[in-house]
């Protein structure tokens, strides 16, 4: 089945839970990611949406793009509201006020709302083990307020609060490894996804919904406006992020790492970075430093995945 990807799109549901007419920028990878995720999730859901790009462009006052129950929360309390709704529904079902319709709770937020501001609420919700799915749409900066750096901004990227110039080379810290933080909470399901691999993304969202307990999915959403790439390249840039190993796709089920897509050789990061304005100022020496770090991280991840596979095999053989 080498032409798998050519025949499969037809099998995906045509039903949209996310109406067109939203005001996302031209070529927005986040709008695509939301659309695909909600194709997989379906209608039986309550959505908790933190402030951020998604909230802004889908709900300009007299209009809404959502065809599912939706609530807007602040940056910092998305996971808290999600856990409140989940606990309240549980109590009401127990008291017989409402029927158990197996409604899913899905919290969505951007990288600022997840990795910076909402982290402690999320950490609490994961620790208490509420049954919900948290999707972080990671576009690597605060895009809706004008491209300020967040802790998910990659090293060297130029943003308005970490501008490249004579005395600064852009973002000075490495990207926070949020999936690893989620894994450290011992939750049943953690995954990374990218809308450039739509079937993989939808599969992971479905898996995360079915899991009992908290699930966390981080979705890389290409932002042509903030990253400074052409609007029609947004799928290609996402694909290159995966192929260069900058954003590897993997899932962690009950602490067991598994690579979703594994490449025999990684592409050089310059292929990914040369398409974007935010990395244009980087000197070859710095690129080399980043390349080394990327390979190091990727190898580390592969080792974890290999170790888990080895353990599984030995258990089976015993």
């Amino acid at each position: 089945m080498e032409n798998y990807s050519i025949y499969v799109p037809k099998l995906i549901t045509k039903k949209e839970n996310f109406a067109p007419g939203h005001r996302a920028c031209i070529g927005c990878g986040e709008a695509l990611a939301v659309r695909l995720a909600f194709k997989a999730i379906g209608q039986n859901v309550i959505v908790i949406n933190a402030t951020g790009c998604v909230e802004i462009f889908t709900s300009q006052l007299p209009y809404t793009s959502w065809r599912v129950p939706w609530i807007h929360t602040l940056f910092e309390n998305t996971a808290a509201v999600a856990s409140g709704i989940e606990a309240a529904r549980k109590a009401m079902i127990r008291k017989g006020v409402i029927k158990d319709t197996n409604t899913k709770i899905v919290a969505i937020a951007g990288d600022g709302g997840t990795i910076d501001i909402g982290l402690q609420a999320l950490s609490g919700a994961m620790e208490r083990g509420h049954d919900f799915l948290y999707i972080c749409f990671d576009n690597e900066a605060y895009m809706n307020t004008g491209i300020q750096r967040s802790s998910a901004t990659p090293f060297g990227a130029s943003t308005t609060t970490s501008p490249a110039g004579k005395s600064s080379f852009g973002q000075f810290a490495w990207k926070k490894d949020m999936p690893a933080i989620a894994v450290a909470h011992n939750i049943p399901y953690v995954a990374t996804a990218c809308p450039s691999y739509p079937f993989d993304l939808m599969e992971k969202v479905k898996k995360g919904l079915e899991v009992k307990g908290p699930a966390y999915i981080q979705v890389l959403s290409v932002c042509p406006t903030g990253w400074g790439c052409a609007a029609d390249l947004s799928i290609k840039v996402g694909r290159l992020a995966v192929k260069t190993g900058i954003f590897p796709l993997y899932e962690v089920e009950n602490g067991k790492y598994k690579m979703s897509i594994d490449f025999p050789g990684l592409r050089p990061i310059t292929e990914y970075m040369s398409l974007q304005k935010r990395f244009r100022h980087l000197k070859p020496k710095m690129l080399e430093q980043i390349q080394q770090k990327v390979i190091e991280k990727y190898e580390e991840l592969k080792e974890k995945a290999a170790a888990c596979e080895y353990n599984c095999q030995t258990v089976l053989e015993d």
Partner: protein
Amino acid sequence: MGKSENELTWKELEVGGIVTEPGNASQYKTGDWRSQRPTYDFNKCLKCGICQIYCPEGCVNQNNQGYFEADLYYCKGCGICSRECPTFVITMKEEE
């Protein structure tokens, strides 16, 4: 709601700014943001639907003959469909 954004007054809004009609953003025309429009050469089309899956607007639908075509009421002209099409059916033309 039925009314366009310009005709609405504050008196017609629900208490708390609640929107009572799900998905009513589909009334809003985003097609006039476009500077390029997709044009199609259906002789080469496989009807694979890749343009539909990658469209951030969700505005690509099948027409009567089963070909996938963008709804120009919503299409913002990003050019993703043209870039991702495996048989190069779609070319972007400058909007007049």
